[in-house]
């Protein structure tokens, strides 16, 4: 194995495994009370007070066009660094940190719904499961709600 492997932080949403480069993850924290933002795009669940810093919480279910989370389930926060500051990604559960090699990687099939194709860079074929590589930049790119609406 000569190509360098990649270390990914993983999490689960609706039974799907997602991963992001661990270097992008600032921290993982349990559910935090959120302050709702009226008029905000649906994917913005609210604002979190992260030790005095105000962080926007983005619901990945909404972004990935997955059904809404059950009322009694509280999401976890994966706090990631982005070009536009830090953002919290709301996910169902936190998984392990895994190493993935380029050999395992494959770009997403063209049959993937276009609504989520932009958000998924590709899949790492793990033994027995697929690890979907999340494009963080796209995942938090919801500055203009109308635009993301059209892309659906």
């Amino acid at each position, binding site marked *: 194995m000569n190509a360098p492997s990649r270390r990914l932080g993983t999490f689960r949403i609706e039974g799907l495994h997602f991963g992001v480069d661990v270097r992008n993850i600032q921290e993982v924290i349990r559910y935090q009370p959120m*302050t709702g*933002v009226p008029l905000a795009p649906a994917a913005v669940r609210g604002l979190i007070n992260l030790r005095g810093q*105000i962080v926007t919480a983005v619901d990945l279910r909404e972004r990935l066009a997955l059904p809404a989370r059950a009322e009694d389930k509280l999401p976890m926060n994966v706090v990631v660094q982005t070009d536009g500051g830090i953002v919290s990604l709301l996910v169902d559960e936190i998984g392990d940190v895994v190493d993935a090699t380029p050999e395992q990687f494959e770009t997403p099939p063209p049959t993937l719904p276009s609504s989520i194709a932009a958000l998924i860079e590709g899949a790492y074929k793990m033994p027995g499961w697929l690890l979907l590589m999340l494009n963080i930049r796209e995942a*938090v790119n919801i500055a203009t709600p109308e635009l993301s609406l059209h892309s659906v």
Partner: protein
Amino acid sequence: MDFLDPELVAEFAIESLEGLADIEQQLLSIESAGANIDVELVNAVFRTMHSIKGTAGFLGLDRIGGLAHRLEEVLNHMRNREIVPSSQLVTTMLSAADYMRQLISAVESSNEGDISEFVAGLEAFLPSAGLNRSAPAAGPKAVATTPPEPEHAPAVANAACPSLTDAVREFVIESYENLDQMERELVALEADPSAVSVVRGIFRTMHTIKGGAGFLALPRLEKLAHAAESLLGRLRDQTLSPSRAVIEVLLKTVDRCREGLRLLETQSSDAGFEVTSLIEQIDEVARHTARPAVAAPVAATKSPQPLPAVNAAEPVAMETEPSIKPTVDSSASEKSSAGMGEATIRVDVGLLDKLMMQVGELVLARNQIVQYAGRLPDSGFVGTAQRLNLITSELQESLMKTRMQPIGNVWSKFPRVVRDLAGQLGKQVRIEMEGRETELDKTIIEAIKDPLTHLVRNSVDHGIEPPEQRRQAGKAVEGTLRLRAYHEGGQVNIEIADDGAGLNLERIRRKAVERGLISAEQSTRMSDRDVSQLIFAPGFSTAEKVTSVSGRGVGMDVVRTNIERIGGTIDLISLPGQGTTMRIKIPLTLAIIPALIVANDGARYAIPQVNLLELVRLDPEKAQDSIEYIHGTPVYRLRGKLLPLVYLSERLFPGLKVAKHRANREAINIVVLRADNRHFGLIVDKVNDTEEIVVKPLGKQLKSIREYAGATIMGDGSIALILDVKRLAPTVAADGEQRACTTENAAASAASGRSVRQSMLVVDVDGDRQFAMPTSAVARLERIPAALIEHAQHREVIQYRGGILPLVRLADAVDLPTTPTGELQVVVHDRAEASFGLIVGRIVDICEVDAVPAERRAADEFIVGSMVIRDRVTDLIDLGALAHFTVSRRRHAVASEASV
């Protein structure tokens, strides 16, 4: 040069400069005491000199040591009362001390200095040359050494200075400041050519730059500075008068030096910096404007500055010019500036920003702790929390102060701007400033720099008239531009006032029509105040021709936008023939602002206090009746004026219709707000308290929602959104459908983006015909019991505010049947030429309508046109014309008698 230990040398320099800092004051005190010598004081100076001498000798700094030795000697005689500290002697000592400071500032090259002049000067005061004991080794050697060519010093100094880049940076920063100061002083000098002390200041500053440039091996800059210095030397010696040409060339030099500095910043040398032509110009000016009577220009250029190797980082040490007769006054001011220099340090703004942020966090943590403390019975903890509370507030306040800068920093550019512009335009303008010390947050200072410059230029260009015109108007030929700044209620007011002709309202009307901003019809109807506001409209400019100065049609709207961006407002008052005043109100700081906290739908929101006018609470019993609905749009009568209301819930949750007050009979809280000089009421569930909040930006995902200006963290750790009041105001409704009233072509004009909207009061008579009039013509709305109507001169009148107000019935005027009821709705028109009350049927609404050409109908002279408002044809009333209508109407008396 071989030093024992660079660290030791540096330490020596610092200590010595500290010691020397007080010497000036001490020597002046010694001088004023005269023969009545204060031995303690003399001893103090003696000790300082003695220790400098000792260390300098140890470090092999023979020039510094030599100078210290002579001074010590003089002081020794003085304390033995062998010599009297004459003012001449003190002057010499001061010069020597100044020079010593200069040497120490550039300690590495200090041995290149020439102290012979000072040594000789001091020795002359000693009781007898014979008594002159042998000086330590350094002394005589120093005297014996021939002064080196000044040109050699820089190279040596350069080699001895390893951290050149730091030195260069310091030099650049200092020099920019020095040049700014020089520019101010030059303009001041031009205004008052007799101000010799100003010349001295300019000379010193230029000399400092020359010295720094020499030290850093910047030959071109040095040469230029030298040429300018020579010219200034002649000004100082009064062999040359500060004519316009002289000032001009010196200002050019200032500009050129700035260019040189910019070059230096990018390439850290002055290679390619072209100065010869400017130097020629300087020489030219010197030749042509020489005062023929005095033929001693040579003496001036030979001013005693033998050592250009001077560290620019130490401006205090720069006052090298041995002033021949230092008046107590100027020495004192120099002293105070010296004190300032030592008491201040440069801090990276980034660091301050970070500190500010951290204190913001601390404030929040403090808020939380104070809240917890309130719930705990532990009195010790409560006490500590209170202390923490106090300390944090003080810390926050102090830190805010570190970011504060006097507005004078921005203003200091203006004398030059005004001078140059006035010169170009052939006008005479004097600039006056008041409140330059008024402080503002650095970020705000940055943000208002351009708008202010624009306004100043505008005032000179458009405001102040040419001299001839002023003379004809019986005014002083010289126009005055007054800048004034002052604090008021947590805000800073800045006024820019000129004593010019005032706005030419006719021309503005004409231009606005020409540019299609308003219709010709409207232009005649608009009040003067509304017309003057037109200059803030996009694409407006009255300049008859586009000049390089202003008149490009971009400007005032940009000024307003920029000022509003930082939460400020701009207003304008123009008096024909007397001038124009622009008044800007801006917050002190952006980082921490006072805000009103309100609760709505279970969440809390912060409303910046700047926008807050008052709070109105309607009791549950009254609430239902107090809010009136006009076509579904709620309004409230606030002291007789209709205040449009906005439900926060409806704005934040579009589609939601609030009717809960009606059902629940709850109290209603109206937060009366101001945005864009318009007032409106925001209805919220609950009004909490005012708090100092730390403004935090929202993430990228939420930036596009303009209803919020940011967010903040409350005492309990929860987050509150900060509302952007301007966006919530009903007239700027985001999406058109929220607008209560629309005109037919609102969409069209909105698309063109150039509409000027006008506020109209819409009334009707018996629900039959609808009328509208500009709200600017309406002073007040009153409800008057019909029983109060009296008669005078065949007119209906009422006693109103201590006077008599004639009444007009709109129904009469438009030939509709009147149905007088118990209470009359009266629209009060209050003008000096004609005040009256118009009795209308019902107040329908206040609408923003687009200024569109109305369809003209000639039937009634007081109806100026018709337009569609709220889906109904509405006649536009000219209130002024209605006033005259009454007087001529005969049947009035009859009608009114019948109605009572």
